[in-house]
């Protein structure tokens, strides 16, 4: 006969384990906090490690000991002095302007326990240092820090069109003072690649007053119309437009045009107010030819068809961005059509403004301007 009591104990133990496991299944919903190096996607963070960031080169002075770089630092060195003294040298880069000169100086002054200076005093705090990489703003600041004594900062920053580089040596005053010549020689050795060759890859916020389909594939960008794939009938303006051949046209619609849900036929669709609407479609081939399309649109506007001879008078051409549009202005009855036909990449693209005559007449200038934003990728 099995030892029933022992078996009971074992089952109880297993049940207890099961309960513990069940409790563990409850997902952790506690708030956590932690400290991290500056995030690469923060506006203040460097992103030189990212692809496309400008390459930087320098010549390291002989007595500087390289330290491991970090997510924060593109360069890091330790300068050893007498009696265990050591100064820290860092090279960091920030996208954007990196703050104005006054903010930079006052940030370093704060690190040295110094009171901030005003704009009026700024000129006495900084110097200009010409080097092959460009014009550095150079500062030499000294202060007293608790537990560290007299501390000095040799700092410089170099602005590029889209980023700023900071070079900084901080350490005991005597050591840093002695290294001043070495530090400036280090700045002279800095070489930057062509800025145009390496723009910062951080997604810029698109300016608010824009309405464009020219978005990166990588993901949504705040500040522009955002429609996720999950949204049924997503606005096509947020999706790169694919023509039959796989290539796409891009454009910028006026900000007051409201995106309408697209469909399989429409590459873009906008409501312009007053019942006017712009539809963008693309088809393979010539879709029946110019004459048939012109007469179709004229028919929609209640106008008589034209023949080949009258086609020249019924259409006008617009050349923009290397594209040639054939524009039909069918403003006859209560409904008007202003349409543009664009043969491109083996297919035909149609940009069509329709609606009540008065609304179309009001929107026509904006529509014609809009056509000039259309371009091939």
């Amino acid at each position, binding site marked *: 006969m099995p030892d029933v009591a022992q*078996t009971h104990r074992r*089952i109880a133990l297993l049940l207890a384990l099961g309960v513990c496991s069940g409790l563990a*299944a409850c997902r952790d*919903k506690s*708030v956590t906090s932690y400290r991290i190096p500056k995030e690469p996607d923060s506006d203040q963070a460097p992103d030189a490690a990212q692809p496309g*960031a400008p390459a930087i080169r320098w010549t390291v002075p002989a007595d500087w000991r390289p330290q491991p770089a970090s997510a924060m630092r593109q360069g890091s060195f330790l300068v050893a002095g007498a009696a265990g003294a050591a100064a820290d040298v860092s090279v960091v880069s920030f996208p954007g302007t990196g703050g104005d000169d006054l903010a930079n100086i006052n940030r370093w002054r704060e690190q040295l326990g110094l009171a901030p200076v005003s704009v009026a005093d700024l000129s006495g705090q900084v110097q200009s240092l010409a080097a092959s990489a460009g014009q550095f703003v150079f500062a030499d600041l000294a202060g007293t820090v608790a537990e560290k004594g007299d501390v000095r900062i040799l700092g410089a920053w170099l602005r590029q069109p889209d980023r700023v580089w900071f070079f900084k040596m901080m350490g005991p005053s005597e050591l840093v003072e002695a290294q001043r010549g070495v530090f400036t020689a280090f700045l002279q050795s800095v070489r930057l690649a062509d800025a145009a060759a390496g723009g910062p890859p951080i997604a810029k916020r698109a300016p608010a007053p824009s309405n464009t389909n020219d978005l990166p594939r990588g993901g949504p960008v705040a*500040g522009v119309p955002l429609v996720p794939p999950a*949204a049924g009938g997503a606005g096509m303006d947020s999706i790169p437009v694919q023509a039959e051949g796989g290539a796409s046209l891009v454009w910028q619609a006026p900000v007051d045009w409201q*995106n309408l849900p697209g469909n399989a036929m429409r590459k873009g669709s906008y409501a312009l107010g007053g019942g006017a609407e712009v539809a963008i479609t693309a088809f393979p081939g010539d879709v029946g030819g110019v004459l048939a399309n012109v007469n179709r649109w004229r028919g929609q506007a209640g106008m008589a068809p034209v023949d080949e001879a009258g086609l020249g008078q019924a259409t006008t051409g617009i050349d923009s961005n290397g594209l040639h549009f054939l524009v039909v202005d069918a403003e006859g009855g209560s409904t008007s059509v202003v349409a543009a036909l664009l043969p491109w990449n083996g297919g035909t693209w149609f940009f069509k403004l329709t609606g009540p005559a008065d609304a179309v007449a009001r929107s026509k200038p904006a529509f014609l301007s809009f056509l000039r934003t259309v371009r091939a990728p």
Partner: protein
Amino acid sequence: MASPRPNPLALFTSLRLTVALLLLSIVLIFAATLDQVHLGVWGVQQKYFRSFFVFSQIPGTGFLFPVFPGGYLLGAVLIVNLVAAHFYRFRFSWRKSGIWLTHIGLILLLVGEGLSGILQQDHQMRIDVGQSRRYSESFRETELAVTETTHPGYDEVVAIPAALLTEGRSIQHPMLPFLVKPVAYYPNATLRMRSQTPGAPPGPATAGEGTDIVATPIPETTKPDESNWPTGYVELAGPEGPVGTFLVSTMMDQSEAFAYQGRTWRIALRAKRDYLPFSITLLKFTHDIYPGTDIPRDFASTIRLRSDDGRDDRQVRIFMNNPLRFGGRAFYQAGYANNDRTTVLQVVRNPSWRIPYVSCALIVLGLIVQFGIHLLAFFRRRLGAPAGVRAPAVGSGGSGPDLASCPPSP
């Protein structure tokens, strides 16, 4: 006449219970497979398998009631049943030690699977060539990150799970000089510029980009090729009054910045992050295809692994079926993007990942031991067979050949 009291031990050791549990498991799997069309793989796992009960809603009400045992319950009872039956029916003996080992291995396998379901975290890392990352991101979970960026060298992050935002209660954290009050939370939403949405009602946002954006909640999607975009409005209020109400959304690529009490902050809703004590830099990504086709033959990431403590700084090649195991996590080559300039690594953290290996080793060992015992017994019988045959023959006074009388072999 009173009916006999049910014996719980008999119930748990019943093999009928085993059969019933297996049948219920089949029904559960079948129902989950049918429901996968509506819920997707993730939703089905959560509803049917990673739950103690499958709940259903009474039509017209918000009341949920259990309709079927879930995977956790069936699995737990099955383990209890197997263990109880084993201890009840089998007595330990060395002759059956192999069976014991095999059974322990099987039970461990079940337990390990359960623990994996509970403890495993699946994250991903997307790294561009040349870029370094020191955190992975959850596929599913979202968090509100309130980050103090005042210090030039580091950021202080307070991460609030999105699950807390859905509860709507104000959140106070010692690191934050203000209260975080969830105003609204949508598991999925669309964002549109307010200027392009005439007639849209004013939103709760009073600060940041959100004042120019209209957020519209939409149903959650379960389709594998679509994403949900969790979105919410969060009010920050300090002792001196409200700081502002911000629109936060995973769809917004940058966090909102603001200043409070002379310190600078950023707030964002983002995929839940798991910061690592090391960084991974993608040095090179290769994507080979079979000649003349688009079929991937191999894709591999050459990364540089640098630990914060300086002990590790090495290159590692991660490719299909050859993950990097480091820091309690496994990094699998999962995909690629951005014209082969971005690698996608799946980061799996599963403290119980060794259990299946131990289980299989136990099962194999058990089988070897059991078959070994049988084999030894077989050989012993064969070697001892003549003696065994002779003994009864002698004992019985039979006339069998007496090997002792045979001439010795040369």
